[in-house]
């Protein structure tokens, strides 16, 4: 029996590996992209990757209510993205101005009322359980393939972030000690390991597009 990673398509072949998939420890993660064991689906029933989070279990946070207005935090991302757009068009001055607006919105964005690793992971769970399914349904109804792509990439990256938070909860600093952390500068995929994968498992850009996260600057 073969199991396939719904994030990066890595194939776990029970025959070759010797260990039945069901006997892998809870802490086992995809050797290629770090996705949780629950992100794997049996090769046949491959169409429907089991959602990593059961909708009922997702805690409700105040950020979940429908909102048409963009928050300052979202406007920051909107502006930093337009800065990139200008940069791609070789418009340096415009890019710098959009970055200035982005920095303003980032700084002016109010601090969250409650903050904790649990709360943070709760937001990922909520997006996986409700946010992405709602957006995907709307995109499919409109035949909006650009938005459908967002759902595919964003959902995978969010699943990875969720897995990392779970792992940190279980293993603490240990799995990060003496190794490096990489972020794909295109899709946001996060990878823990000494060397980044040859291709980003989510968006398929080459390794040099994955950037290492620097440690805290020592005082």
């Amino acid at each position: 029996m073969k199991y396939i990673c719904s994030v990066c398509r890595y194939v776990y072949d029970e025959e070759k590996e010797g260990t039945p998939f069901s006997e892998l420890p809870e802490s086992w993660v995809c050797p290629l992209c770090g996705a949780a064991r629950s992100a794997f689906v049996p090769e046949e029933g491959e169409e429907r990757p089991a959602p990593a989070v059961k909708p009922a279990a997702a805690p409700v946070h105040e950020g979940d209510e429908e909102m048409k207005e963009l928050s300052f935090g979202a406007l920051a991302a909107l502006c930093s993205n337009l800065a990139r757009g200008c940069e791609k068009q070789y418009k340096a001055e415009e890019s710098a101005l959009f970055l200035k607006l982005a920095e303003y919105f980032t700084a002016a964005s109010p601090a969250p009322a409650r903050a904790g690793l649990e709360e943070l992971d709760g937001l990922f769970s909520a997006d996986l359980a409700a946010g992405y399914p709602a957006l995907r349904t709307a995109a499919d109804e409109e035949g909006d393939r650009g938005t459908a792509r967002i759902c595919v990439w964003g959902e995978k990256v969010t699943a990875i972030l969720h897995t990392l938070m779970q792992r940190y909860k279980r293993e603490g600093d240990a799995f990060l000690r003496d190794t490096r952390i990489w972020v794909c500068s295109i899709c946001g995929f996060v990878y823990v390991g000494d060397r980044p994968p040859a291709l980003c498992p989510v968006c398929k850009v080459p390794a040099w597009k994955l950037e290492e996260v620097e440690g805290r600057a020592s005082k």
Partner: protein
Amino acid sequence: MKMLAVRNLRLCTKDCLCLYVCPTGATDTEDSIIDLSKCIGCGMCADACPSKAISMVPEEYPPQQKKAEHVLTPSHTLANNKAKAEGMARLLAREAESGELYRLLKAVERSLRLVNEDLLRESGYMLPQSANTHELLASWVQEPPAPDFPVEAAKKLLELLPCNEPLEKKMHKYRCTVCGYIHEAEELPPDFSCPVCRQPASAFERIE
């Protein structure tokens, strides 16, 4: 469509063919940026460049794809959630006790910003020259979102970026208070009279 040449400075080796082939000398500049006031868009340089460092781009970009309202609502909900998570990760990173947790949270913060940028790009803000972007900037100039908002930056952007599609007209509905007839227009002209009951413009009220 009028085209212009732009050069990717990272790919350019700064030493060769485009300098020879350009009929107007637009490629030969002290800062290596092609002089757009000279460029006539002939494309010779892009064809000649051995490093594929020159692209031909339209002077005016085409309008972007319109986004359906009912895609935008879940998209904005998700964007706000991502922003909230990003803010939380930033705060937690600052407070993190170990270097490991700090790096993890910084990675999460950066990842969330990238995911959100992608999401918002797809929600109607792909192009800096779009009507959406223009309207947003104009609304900030007119009514700054906060007292300390850098209005000049938004103003300057409006000057620098040409808008590549007609701005949507703001339509309003006016109702005749006498007969209930509804007239749709940007503005109700002062000499307007109700086509049904002949009342003057003063008998109308704006309902939307």
